[in-house]
């Protein structure tokens, strides 16, 4: 309660890191657009070319972000992993709930596979953004 807030120079604020959060947010945007597209047709069978393209583009953005992040030295990987693990658990549960809603309403076949793939990225994107945002301000 009485410890003064740090007065040392804020290196973590001026440090340049790859645009992992920006890439992952862009990936999340594509996933959300794909999800809206699928949901807007449900319970009819939607055309799958658009959501599959969105999934591929979204996946590429996440992979590029992760590759860029893996090349960063002096990063708080321990914090990144700790936060990412718990956030992933929370978002896997959320994605599972959405998947359940589709399965419960008789989604099947290729549309269900596409929904599942989009939900997979939905479960990965926010934990990646959260853990990166937290870890970038932590000391290694």
């Amino acid at each position: 309660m009485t410890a003064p807030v740090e007065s040392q120079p804020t290196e973590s604020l001026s440090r340049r890191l790859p645009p992992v959060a920006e890439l992952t947010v862009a990936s999340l945007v594509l996933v959300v657009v794909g999800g809206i597209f699928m949901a807007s047709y449900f319970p009819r069978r939607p055309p799958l070319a658009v959501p599959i393209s969105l999934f591929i583009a979204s996946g590429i953005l996440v992979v590029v972000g992760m590759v860029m992040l893996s090349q960063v030295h002096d990063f708080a990987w321990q914090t990144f992993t700790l936060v990412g693990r718990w956030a992933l658990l929370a978002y896997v549960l959320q994605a599972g709930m959405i998947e359940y809603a589709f399965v419960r309403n008789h989604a099947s076949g290729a549309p269900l596979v596409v929904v599942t793939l989009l939900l997979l990225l939905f479960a990965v994107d926010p934990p990646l953004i959260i853990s990166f945002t937290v870890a970038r301000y932590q000391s290694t």
Partner: protein
Amino acid sequence: MTDQAQVIPASGPAIGMEAPPRPQVVPVKGLPIVAILVVALVICIAEDWRWGLDFFHVAGGALWTSIDLFVGLAIGPILGRLSIPARAEFSARFMPKMVLIMPTVVLLTLAAGFQLALKLHNLDASSPNHTWLLASFVIVGVMAVIALGVLEPANIAVLFEMRKPQPNGEIIGKLMRRFVYTAGILGVMQIATVVIMTRVATQ
């Protein structure tokens, strides 16, 4: 909103600022309540129980909208005008609750709402509500990206910063500014949601 940006120092850590209480990132005591609510929601969906679905969608939606409006348009601007120590102390107590409440409320509202829309055939292309629901999907999608991509990461990063023995006022200020702006945007977008949902309910 412009005022808030002016009040928060753009640079320079808050030297000599008193550290706020060390916050718990996720209030563990609340997790059983979340689990009970989610299990109840699963049962309602599995049984297609109209009352339960209505309850979760209406009560969850009312909470979600009210909290977003209140935080975005009332708490946010007040928070933006507080000193960084006061803001940090408020956040240390406020943000852990938001970490638990908001994802739960959003999950309950959306899952129950989707099931209701299917049950009431509002998603059918022939339904007069179809276009309105698509509009609400788009709004919720934009809100989801803002909340999951910007607001929540900033919220959790603030909590981690405040758990340090010597929290950095500049980092807290920067992240809180992000929180205040995005909360304001979400609050305004909730007005559009209310307009759409009242239209759907009366059509």
